[in-house]
């Protein structure tokens, strides 16, 4: 599903040039659950941003579903993204001005789903993450665990082929964290590919494969399954 070769990304400020990704190569097959680990600043999040088509690489190749996307412009990236990729963030990133229902509905609006269909699909997915009773609440009115469940619901409502999770349990206590990890495992079992960045060895154990990064390169791979 994903094949990246010699991927490069640099950040420049006035004084220094930081290499975030240094000729990194990686392949992820459809249906895999991959955890990416490594110390702060090793390039995990940069990798995730590029995989999520939020950022473009400075060099190398990125083939997504058989299409070379490394040189896509923003508009093309946005189109590809909204149909194929769901995101879960450490800080949830729900829009404060929208209700639970409206937050989850948003990706469907952007992909042009009709209103009646949207309602059905949002309700379905809210049922699934057991937050239906809170559908008209605003994010601030929910606990952290509940907010992350909404975020997961929002990530999957469009039935994406790939979910990118950036420390999804980082702001949660262990019981809420485990709940989210169970949800991701369920999704994976239903066929969704998941790539998750995490600091937690405990969470990483839910995946099939752990990629460890250092200084913008992969150093080891542990196959768990």
């Amino acid at each position, binding site marked *: 599903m994903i094949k990246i070769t010699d991927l490069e990304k640099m950040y420049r400020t006035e004084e220094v040039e930081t290499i975030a990704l240094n000729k990194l190569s990686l392949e992820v097959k459809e249906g895999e659950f991959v955890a990416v680990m490594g110390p702060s600043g090793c390039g995990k999040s940069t990798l995730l941003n590029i995989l999520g088509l*939020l950022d473009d690489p400075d060099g190398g190749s990125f083939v997504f579903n058989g299409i070379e996307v490394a040189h896509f412009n923003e508009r093309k990236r946005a189109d590809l993204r909204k149909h194929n990729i769901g995101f879960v963030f450490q800080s949830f990133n729900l829009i404060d*001005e*929208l209700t639970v229902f409206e937050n989850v509905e*948003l990706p469907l609006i952007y992909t042009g789903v009709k209103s009646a269909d949207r309602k059905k699909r949002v309700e379905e997915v809210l049922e699934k993450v057991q937050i239906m009773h809170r559908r008209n609440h605003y994010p601030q009115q929910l606990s952290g665990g509940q907010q992350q469940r909404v975020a997961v619901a929002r990530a999957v409502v469009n039935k994406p082929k790939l979910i990118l999770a950036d420390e999804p349990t980082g702001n949660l206590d262990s019981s809420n964290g485990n709940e989210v990890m169970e949800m991701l495992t369920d999704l994976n079992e239903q066929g969704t590919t998941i790539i998750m960045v995490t600091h937690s060895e405990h969470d990483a154990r839910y995946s099939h494969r752990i990629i460890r990064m250092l200084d913008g390169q992969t150093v080891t791979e542990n196959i768990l399954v």
Partner: protein
Amino acid sequence: MFKSYLKIAWRNLRINKWYSAINIIGLGIGLASFILVLLFLNYELSYDKWNPELTKIYKLGIEDKDGIAWNGATPEPLGRLIAGKYSNAEAATRMSGAGDYEILVAANDKKIYQKGITEVDSLFFKVFPYQLSSGNIHTALNAPNAAVITETVRNKLFGQDDPIGKTIKLYGRIEVVVSGIMQSPDQPSALNMQILFRSPYEKSNSHWQNFSYQTFIKVKNAVTPGDLETAINTIYYNDQQKANNLTYQQYLQKENKTILFSEKLSALHNFPKSGGSNFKTIVVLLILAFLLLVAGAVNFSNLSIATSIKRAKEVGVRKVLGGRRQQLFWQFMGEAILSCSLSLCIAGMLVVLLMPWFKQEFSIQFSILSGGTLVFIAQITLCIVTVILLSGLYPSVFLSRFNTSKILKGNYSQGKSGLKLRNLLLVLQFALSAFFVFSVIVISSQVHYMQTKDKGFSSAQIMRIEAQQGTRDDGFDKARATLLSVPGIELVSKTTLVPGDADVDTILNDYSFNGQTIKMTTVKVSADYFKTVGTPVLKGRGFNDSYADQNTRSLILNETAASLWGNQKVVGSFVGMPYCDSVKAQIVGITKDINVQDMANAVRPIAYSINNKACGYLSGGALLIKLSGGDLSQTISNIEERWKQIEPDTPIRYTFLDENFQRIFKTYFTIQKTISFFALVAILISAMGLFALTAYIIKERTKEIGIRKVLGAGIGDVLVLVGKLFLQLIIVALLVAIPLSWLAASKWLQTFAYRIHLNWMMVTGTVFTIAIIVLITIGTQAVKAAMSNPVKSLKTE
């Protein structure tokens, strides 16, 4: 999608209630001011546009080496000459109107005073496209005593009766017969025509020396002003000016020449070649109102950028979920559109509320659509689109451009890149406020100066009575004696130049002294005039009952006239009055200058004399009565009673000089009020903007302020912390605004002959005012932030 935008726009308005209200109300006030002035401009521009035929009408005038002669009037036969010889002339007419001067009009037993009485010739309707609702337009003015009246005059004089064939009496002596009823145009005209009549003296008035008429011609085909003027001048030169066998072209090379010029009727109101117009004032007001509008729009832009840090996350999330930049752009534009629409609603309400006041202040009668419905809708649309672009474009581009991956990592530093623009906009707003504050100070000082400056006479307790020419000339002694018998009247006098009158005679007459010509305005008075108005005689003596004084053998000059003599002896010297009298008159005294008008015009050199028969006949003027204290209303009712003996046919009309002067100053009061209102709006808008901005900055820095307080900072320190962010900007704003305001103010002051001098106190006043406003705006919030419990703010993470 659209619904979703609208929803979030509305929720954002509600969540940021205060900021939204600030935005919307500020912009609403700015819009309302702009719309009002725009309506005023539309109204002024709609003058003489009520019929397409009007574009073919030109007014003719004569210009010589001294400028436009005779206040724009022309010799009586000029129109006939041009119409007869200029092939492109369709028709010409001449008229002599009393304008805004009220004339006594009587029909049956009804007597009214009416403006717009105009003497015309039989060709009037060949030139002007008025319509008659009754009578035949082709023959209505054929009879030598015909008159055409408007519906308004008909209602006043005859009610619903048919006036055709009925006699009306004008000026108490001219009898004319109504032959038609004219429809007043539904749009304004520079020519106020209420009664058109043909004079019984038409024949004797018709000669080239009679400069009492305005001449209008109508052309067949459109013509450039240059071609028209060449054509009519050639005709005029060959017929009237030709001398020494010079050709017209050769004549043009001469220094001393008299030539004709033309003015389009439709431009007469706004761009007259002689006299002034409101147009410049309105354009300046429109520019100022537009700046206010920009200031209001800028607030929106500014606050949007200020809140962008908060919105950044939303932008990021929306982008991650597939929102395109374009979609986000329109989402933010949608918010601007929603706010601006609400502002427009508020502006609409304000306009409706303020309209009566505005109309009264500027003495105009216009409605919202007086400039034409479509034009107005187009203007408002253009205006609101501009405002939307001004307020929404930058924030929309700015917000939709945020880099997603950085924002989602919690890096909101991009939100700060708008800081420069935000600061620039704040500088603009405060520069505008400072400009207005300075203007208000200058205008108020000048108005105060004009009101309190020694006018050279005392206007207190002086009654001005309108009187017929006969009462002022032959009948004066009798009238004076009759009035003096009323208890409470101290003095009765007359003058042809009444201080405080809106229209004053500005013609200069030639006087000769030692072979040189001295130009002075002739004013005819009675012996008691100077005593009545309390003007001191500085040198020589005042008038008395001697034969010489009573028969134009003695002159009294004002100071300005006396200064024309230079170092030569004035009092006692003899002055010739060419074109008028063969005997010289002696100057017997010099009086203090009297400012008969506002301070815009310098005092003219004046030669006072008595007796209107002997030399330099002057019409116009009034009786002046000096009242002593006591029961004023009793005195006035006694005067009214006694007046019936003096002029039995004309009801008394009187005013007081005090009030007349206030009326003259009204224009300045209006400008003062308008600019003060603008200043208030500008200050409100900038203060609101600054208030919201400060609130945001304090909110952003709540934690920092908390930490500082824990470490021992006091209220003063916090105030300085917040204040110094803006101090620089305010200083820049003042540095920009003060030189510009100074320049504008001195330009404005130059239109006054008597004016104040700009000084540093005015600058200090401006700086002080702005400083106070800034201090209050920032201070209240800084103090609140500084007083809050730091434990609370540190917990907010």
